[in-house]
């Protein structure tokens, strides 16, 4: 296990390094400068600004300086927000995206598993068809459409929850629902298929024959085996949800990181682009590692480090 972990961590560092390098050089290929009023600046001003931001140096040197800084936890200063360190910019924005993503993930997956399981248990009945239709709608309706509808009907017309904003728990409910519907539908579909498979297995029949109750069979045998493949699905979901959705963040006025990322690209805010990319990437590799470890833990058939005989 330790050997496996060490190997994985080395791979992770390599991945981060490759992503940092590729992003850095691709970013430098983007046309335009990070300055808002370049045409009105004198050559001296441009020179001084380039010196201050280190943009006067050759790109390879800028790259080395950046990587050096990053290793010391220094992501530089944002061009767009004057004098704002990128690390504090990310820190202040990541929390909201993470919270929202986590809530949506939990809601979506838990409800998805329940709905999927019920549909599988009632296979071929109206319950199953309803769940399937629901899953198809959930998967095909974009979350921003749902967000706008929720906001108008539940927020404005019924007044049950705040229309937009961030700070109180009640303000997180509508965006959580909007974000959760996609994973919910996918999870439900996934669980249904995998459970229908499991339910027709011999050991389930054996369990039933031994006189176990229906609930007991589902809970102890069918569910556990059906949920395993879901772990593969949850990893990328977790990253996708927690790194923020620009559209949902904009609709509900959430100070998240998703919108900031897009804006940094549009304004050539190099340090912010790099900083957020690295945070995303770190999140993704960590989640993938955890997924693999969890996989091994819940399913003893999966070995993490080769043959242990």
């Amino acid at each position, binding site marked *: 296990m330790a050997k496996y972990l060490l190997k994985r961590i080395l791979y992770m560092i390599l991945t981060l390094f490759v992503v940092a390098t590729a992003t850095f050089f691709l970013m430098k290929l983007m046309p335009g*400068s990070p300055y808002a009023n370049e045409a*009105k600046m*004198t050559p001296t*001003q441009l020179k*001084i600004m380039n010196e201050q931001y280190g943009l006067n140096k050759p790109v390879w040197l800028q790259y080395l300086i950046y990587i050096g800084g990053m290793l010391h936890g220094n992501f530089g200063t944002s061009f767009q927000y004057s004098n*704002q360190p990128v690390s504090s910019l990310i820190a*202040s924005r990541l929390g909201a995206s993470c919270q929202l993503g986590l809530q949506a993930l939990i809601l979506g997956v838990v409800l998805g598993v329940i709905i999927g399981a019920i549909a599988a248990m009632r296979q071929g009945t109206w319950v199953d068809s309803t769940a399937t239709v629901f899953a198809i709608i959930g998967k095909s309706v974009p979350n921003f459409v749902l967000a706008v509808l929720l906001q108008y009907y539940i927020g404005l017309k019924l007044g049950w929850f705040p229309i937009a904003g961030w700070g109180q728990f*009640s303000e997180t409910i509508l965006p959580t629902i909007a974000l959760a519907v996609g994973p919910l539908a996918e999870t439900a579909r996934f669980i249904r298929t995998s459970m229908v498979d499991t339910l027709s297995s011999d050991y389930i029949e054996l369990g039933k024959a031994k006189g176990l109750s229906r609930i007991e069979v589902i809970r102890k045998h069918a569910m556990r085996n059906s949920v395993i493949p879901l772990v593969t699905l949850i990893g990328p979901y977790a990253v996708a949800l927690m790194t923020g959705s620009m559209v949902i963040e904009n609709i509900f*006025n959430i100070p998240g990181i998703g919108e900031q990322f897009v804006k940094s690209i549009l304004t050539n805010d190099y340090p912010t682009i790099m900083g957020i990319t690295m945070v995303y990437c770190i999140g993704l590799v960590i989640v993938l590692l955890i997924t693999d470890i969890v996989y091994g833990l819940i399913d003893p058939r999966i070995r993490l480090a080769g043959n242990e005989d």
Partner: protein
Amino acid sequence: MKLNWKRWLAAGLAVGACALALTACSSGSSSSTSAKQTISWMETSEIEGMDQSVVTDSTSFNQLNNTMEGFYRLGKNSKIEPGIATKTTVSKDGKTWIFTLRKNAKWSNGDPVTAKDFVYSWRRTVNPKTNSQYSYLFSGIKNADAIIAGKKSANTLGIQAEGNYKVKVTLDKRIPYFKLLMGFPLFAPENEKAVKKFGKKYGTASKYMVYDGPFVQKGWTGTNLTWKLVKNKNYWDKKAVKLQTINYSVQKTPSTDYNLYQAGKLDAAILSAQAAKSLKGQSGYTVLQTSSTQYLEINQAKNNGLKNLNLRKAISMAIDRKGLASAVGGANKPATTLSAPGMTIVNGKDYTDLVQNSQTKALCTYNPTKAKAYFKKALKELGKSKLSYTILCYDDDASKKAAESIQSNLEENLKGLTVNISSMPKKSALSRGVAGNFEIFLTGWQADFNDPISFLDMNTTNNSYNWQKWSNKQYDKLVAASKTTSSSSQRWNDLAKAEQIIIEQQGVTPLYHAASAWMIRPSVKNVVFNGAGANYDFKTAYVTK
């Protein structure tokens, strides 16, 4: 076992229902804002900084306009209103200005506002090391250009403190719009003690600032989407300030802000094009006209026929500006002048009325027949039967819609002309603009201050913004003359003539003046909106019952 499971489920449902009910209650009970002198306003993007010497965006300048104060403030229609200066003396040649400061003006930290604060602020802004991207507005103040170019020390700038309450400003040349500039927050004083104390953090959050204007800012942390402006207890004219609090939020989706407006959580909401159409005429519907113009820059530097005047005239007259303005949405107005209307009143008339004559109007009016005739002439002069050009535009919705509308107008009315569209992110398009790497550029300009020179100066031959490389000696001469004359009527004449030339020669092809449609709660009174520079001033705004 079975019973247990059901019991848990029932209990869970009950708790869930209670929680829902509770949150519903709490959200419903916090919606009373009326009658109190509190309003909730919105911006469409975040504050990028509060350091007036370095910020460039309108949200930040709107904040600074309400929290800082220079020699003057700008009232309705950019009317000069008293600020920190109580008296202004101007020398006969217009080059020496002496501002006498009020003695009761204080910073929010209790320090008096003195002449030194102005000197410090101005020197700091023009110092190239400060990285001000707006320092060009100091051009014309003695030595400013040389300092910005790094050739002289910032201490040589034409501003001096004469004692604690007198500031002497020396100009290289007369600046006819100097008073307007003095109302822009860029020229406000800065508290040296605070700038030095906070160092790099100065202006990066509400708490790292001191203010001398009607309001102080609270709760802005540097990147968040909500904050407040609260009445400044140390402000010299606090009796005139009625509002106690302005709650600000950043709204990026028009449907959200309008929902919040309807729920009473916002007092002003920008509308989407669709909502603007359906709400037009309702109580609260307000059109805010910015001092801006969208136009085509037709590149004269490339040897591809665009230098042909008849071709440019044909292009201009083949564009249906009314259709274009409505296709883009909002409350945009078709443009027949380069300068935006509503900026300056000259002898009781809008300045743009001086510009318009039958020729300029005809050239900016949709006339397919004449356009065809000009196009025919152009093809003959160029010895070609077909032409093809690409319009460069930004990749936002409005720009793309505008480009498509122009493309269909041109291809439909000018047979033999093929128009392609190349849309890209703003920064990329702008860098192409600066490099002159375009054929036709769909872009625009918003005035820095409410004077037509803001539009005209940039099209003179050597201006760094003259990306289309249009050049006309007479035009250059008139713009230069407008800057030196001491007679204001002569100045307006010069500017209007220059603008007639640029339209007649199609140095740029004006398309429309951008305006945004808002719902503003009718109980909110006296909010000053100016289309150029910093837009809002809440100093004398108030709420009626």
